[in-house]
Protein backbone atom coordinates (compact mmCIF):
# COMPACT_ATOMS: atom_id res chain seq x y z
CA UNK A 1 0.00 0.00 0.00
CA UNK A 2 1.38 3.40 -0.99
CA UNK A 3 1.98 5.86 1.81
CA UNK A 4 1.23 9.56 2.04
CA UNK A 5 3.00 11.40 -0.76
CA UNK A 6 4.23 14.97 -0.40
CA UNK A 7 6.09 17.36 -2.66
CA UNK A 8 8.36 19.14 -2.87
CA UNK A 9 10.65 17.66 -0.22
CA UNK A 10 12.65 20.85 0.07
CA UNK A 11 11.98 24.46 -0.83
CA UNK A 12 14.02 27.60 -0.27
CA UNK A 13 12.39 30.97 -0.87
CA UNK A 14 12.91 34.56 0.13
CA UNK A 15 10.54 36.32 2.50
CA UNK A 16 7.43 37.74 0.88
CA UNK A 17 7.52 35.10 -1.85
CA UNK A 18 4.85 32.43 -2.16
CA UNK A 19 5.08 28.64 -1.96
CA UNK A 20 2.72 25.71 -2.37
CA UNK A 21 2.91 22.19 -0.98
CA UNK A 22 1.04 19.19 -2.29
CA UNK A 23 -0.17 16.09 -0.49
CA UNK A 24 -1.74 12.88 -1.71
CA UNK A 25 -3.10 10.81 1.18
CA UNK A 26 -3.41 7.06 1.43
CA UNK A 27 -6.21 5.87 -0.82
CA UNK A 28 -9.54 5.78 0.96
CA UNK A 29 -8.49 7.99 3.87
CA UNK A 30 -11.22 10.57 4.37
CA UNK A 31 -9.39 12.64 6.97
CA UNK A 32 -6.40 14.74 6.00
CA UNK A 33 -4.27 16.99 8.21
CA UNK A 34 -1.59 19.58 7.65
CA UNK A 35 0.87 20.06 10.50
CA UNK A 36 3.69 22.56 10.92
CA UNK A 37 6.77 21.33 12.74
CA UNK A 38 9.36 23.90 13.72
CA UNK A 39 12.82 22.50 14.45
CA UNK A 40 12.97 20.89 17.88
CA UNK A 41 9.22 21.13 18.52
CA UNK A 42 6.20 18.89 18.20
CA UNK A 43 3.90 19.02 15.17
CA UNK A 44 1.30 21.78 15.37
CA UNK A 45 -2.03 21.23 13.65
CA UNK A 46 -2.80 23.82 10.98
CA UNK A 47 -5.91 22.43 9.33
CA UNK A 48 -8.02 19.28 9.25
CA UNK A 49 -10.20 18.14 6.35
CA UNK A 50 -12.91 15.54 6.33
CA UNK A 51 -13.36 14.60 2.66
CA UNK A 52 -13.40 18.03 1.00
CA UNK A 53 -14.74 19.96 3.98
CA UNK A 54 -12.75 21.84 6.63
CA UNK A 55 -13.23 20.45 10.15
CA UNK A 56 -10.79 22.70 12.00
CA UNK A 57 -8.63 25.58 10.79
CA UNK A 58 -8.48 27.50 14.06
CA UNK A 59 -4.66 27.53 14.12
CA UNK A 60 -4.17 28.39 10.47
CA UNK A 61 -2.80 31.95 9.99
CA UNK A 62 -5.45 32.81 7.45
CA UNK A 63 -3.90 36.13 6.45
CA UNK A 64 -1.10 34.23 4.72
CA UNK A 65 -1.93 30.51 4.73
CA UNK A 66 -4.60 28.78 2.69
CA UNK A 67 -5.40 25.15 2.03
CA UNK A 68 -7.83 23.24 -0.10
CA UNK A 69 -8.91 19.70 -0.81
CA UNK A 70 -11.27 20.23 -3.70
CA UNK A 71 -12.11 16.67 -4.70
CA UNK A 72 -11.67 15.11 -1.29
CA UNK A 73 -8.44 13.41 -2.26
CA UNK A 74 -5.22 15.39 -2.63
CA UNK A 75 -4.62 18.70 -0.93
CA UNK A 76 -2.57 21.86 -1.39
CA UNK A 77 -1.23 24.16 1.31
CA UNK A 78 -0.17 27.64 0.20
CA UNK A 79 1.76 30.37 1.96
CA UNK A 80 1.68 33.90 0.58
CA UNK A 81 3.58 35.99 1.50
CA UNK A 82 6.08 33.91 3.44
CA UNK A 83 7.75 35.18 6.60
CA UNK A 84 11.02 34.08 8.20
CA UNK A 85 9.11 32.35 11.00
CA UNK A 86 7.39 30.09 8.47
CA UNK A 87 10.62 28.11 8.13
CA UNK A 88 9.57 24.63 9.20
CA UNK A 89 8.67 21.17 7.99
CA UNK A 90 5.11 20.92 6.72
CA UNK A 91 3.74 17.47 7.39
CA UNK A 92 0.70 15.99 5.77
CA UNK A 93 -1.06 13.13 7.51
CA UNK A 94 -4.11 11.05 6.73
CA UNK A 95 -6.38 8.68 8.59
CA UNK A 96 -9.30 6.50 7.64
CA UNK A 97 -11.17 7.67 10.72
CA UNK A 98 -12.01 11.02 12.25
CA UNK A 99 -11.12 11.64 15.87
CA UNK A 100 -9.57 8.25 16.54
CA UNK A 101 -6.87 5.92 15.35
CA UNK A 102 -3.35 6.47 14.13
CA UNK A 103 -2.21 9.11 11.71
CA UNK A 104 -0.07 8.17 8.73
CA UNK A 105 2.46 10.89 7.97
CA UNK A 106 4.21 11.79 4.75
CA UNK A 107 7.93 12.55 4.60
CA UNK A 108 7.22 16.26 4.91
CA UNK A 109 8.17 19.37 2.96
CA UNK A 110 11.02 21.35 4.48
CA UNK A 111 10.65 25.10 3.91
CA UNK A 112 13.46 27.56 4.44
CA UNK A 113 12.58 31.24 4.23
CA UNK A 114 15.56 33.58 3.79
Amino acid at each position, binding site marked *: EAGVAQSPRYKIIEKRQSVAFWCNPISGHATL*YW*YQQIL*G*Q*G*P*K*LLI*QFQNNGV*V*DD*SQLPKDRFSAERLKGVDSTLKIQPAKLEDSAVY*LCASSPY*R*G*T*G*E*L*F*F*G*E*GSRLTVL
Partner: protein
Amino acid sequence: GQQVMQIPQYQHVQEGEDFTTYCNSSTTLSNIQWYKQRPGGHPVFLIQLVKSGEVKKQKRLTFQFGEAKKNSSLHITATQTTDVGTYFCASYSGGGADGLTFGKGTHLIIQP
Protein backbone atom coordinates in the same frame (compact mmCIF):
# COMPACT_ATOMS: atom_id res chain seq x y z
CA GLY B 1 -7.17 21.45 21.77
CA GLN B 2 -6.10 19.54 24.85
CA GLN B 3 -2.61 20.36 26.05
CA VAL B 4 -0.19 17.55 26.81
CA MET B 5 3.08 18.29 28.56
CA GLN B 6 6.08 16.04 28.17
CA ILE B 7 9.13 15.63 30.35
CA PRO B 8 12.02 15.53 30.09
CA GLN B 9 12.75 17.56 26.98
CA TYR B 10 16.10 15.83 26.48
CA GLN B 11 17.47 12.58 27.87
CA HIS B 12 21.01 11.34 27.47
CA VAL B 13 21.58 7.68 28.31
CA GLN B 14 24.35 5.16 27.87
CA GLU B 15 23.49 2.33 25.54
CA GLY B 16 21.93 -0.43 27.61
CA GLU B 17 20.39 1.90 30.17
CA ASP B 18 16.66 2.31 30.57
CA PHE B 19 14.70 5.37 29.43
CA THR B 20 11.35 6.81 30.47
CA THR B 21 9.36 9.76 29.15
CA TYR B 22 6.25 11.15 30.78
CA CYS B 23 3.19 12.85 29.39
CA ASN B 24 0.81 14.85 31.58
CA SER B 25 -2.48 16.65 31.08
CA SER B 26 -4.53 18.87 33.37
CA THR B 27 -7.71 17.39 31.91
CA THR B 28 -8.93 13.85 31.41
CA LEU B 29 -7.85 12.41 28.10
CA SER B 30 -10.07 10.20 25.97
CA ASN B 31 -7.01 8.41 24.69
CA ILE B 32 -3.26 8.85 24.30
CA GLN B 33 -1.04 7.96 21.38
CA TRP B 34 2.72 7.67 21.15
CA TYR B 35 4.82 8.40 18.06
CA LYS B 36 8.52 8.08 17.32
CA GLN B 37 10.37 10.42 14.98
CA ARG B 38 13.87 9.53 13.87
CA PRO B 39 16.27 12.40 13.10
CA GLY B 40 15.28 13.81 9.72
CA GLY B 41 12.23 11.57 9.54
CA HIS B 42 8.52 11.85 10.08
CA PRO B 43 6.43 10.76 13.08
CA VAL B 44 5.59 7.07 13.09
CA PHE B 45 2.75 5.68 15.18
CA LEU B 46 3.73 3.37 18.02
CA ILE B 47 0.58 2.73 20.02
CA GLN B 48 -2.77 4.02 21.26
CA LEU B 49 -4.02 3.64 24.83
CA VAL B 50 -7.68 4.09 25.65
CA LYS B 51 -8.53 2.42 28.95
CA SER B 52 -7.80 3.69 32.45
CA GLY B 53 -4.71 1.96 33.86
CA GLU B 54 -3.94 0.28 30.55
CA VAL B 55 -0.48 -1.20 30.07
CA LYS B 56 0.80 -2.38 26.71
CA LYS B 57 4.15 -3.82 25.73
CA GLN B 58 6.01 -3.92 22.44
CA LYS B 59 9.25 -5.86 22.87
CA ARG B 60 11.43 -3.52 24.99
CA LEU B 61 8.82 -0.72 25.07
CA THR B 62 6.19 -0.48 27.83
CA PHE B 63 3.35 2.03 27.60
CA GLN B 64 1.10 2.99 30.50
CA PHE B 65 -2.06 5.09 30.78
CA GLY B 66 -2.78 6.48 34.23
CA GLU B 67 -5.77 5.48 36.30
CA ALA B 68 -7.19 9.00 36.07
CA LYS B 69 -6.40 9.15 32.33
CA LYS B 70 -4.40 12.33 32.86
CA ASN B 71 -0.92 10.92 32.38
CA SER B 72 0.99 8.36 30.41
CA SER B 73 4.50 7.02 30.20
CA LEU B 74 6.76 5.24 27.75
CA HIS B 75 9.55 3.11 29.14
CA ILE B 76 12.32 1.56 27.07
CA THR B 77 14.35 -1.23 28.65
CA ALA B 78 18.01 -1.61 27.72
CA THR B 79 18.20 1.11 25.08
CA GLN B 80 19.86 0.44 21.74
CA THR B 81 21.25 2.90 19.21
CA THR B 82 18.19 2.25 17.04
CA ASP B 83 16.05 3.85 19.76
CA VAL B 84 17.52 7.29 19.03
CA GLY B 85 14.90 9.86 18.11
CA THR B 86 12.13 11.99 19.54
CA TYR B 87 9.17 10.42 21.27
CA PHE B 88 5.88 12.32 21.19
CA CYS B 89 2.68 11.75 23.06
CA ALA B 90 -0.49 13.00 21.42
CA SER B 91 -4.18 13.10 22.16
CA TYR B 92 -7.37 13.83 20.30
CA SER B 93 -9.15 17.02 21.31
CA GLY B 94 -12.64 15.62 21.21
CA GLY B 95 -15.80 17.46 20.33
CA GLY B 96 -16.07 19.34 17.07
CA ALA B 97 -12.35 20.05 16.77
CA ASP B 98 -10.89 16.56 16.78
CA GLY B 99 -7.37 16.94 15.46
CA LEU B 100 -4.47 15.23 17.20
CA THR B 101 -2.55 17.52 19.58
CA PHE B 102 1.11 16.65 20.10
CA GLY B 103 3.38 17.28 23.04
CA LYS B 104 6.77 18.90 22.52
CA GLY B 105 8.50 15.53 22.62
CA THR B 106 11.41 13.97 24.47
CA HIS B 107 14.65 13.79 22.52
CA LEU B 108 16.49 10.57 23.32
CA ILE B 109 20.25 10.68 22.80
CA ILE B 110 22.17 7.45 23.26
CA GLN B 111 25.87 7.34 23.92
CA PRO B 112 27.53 4.09 22.85
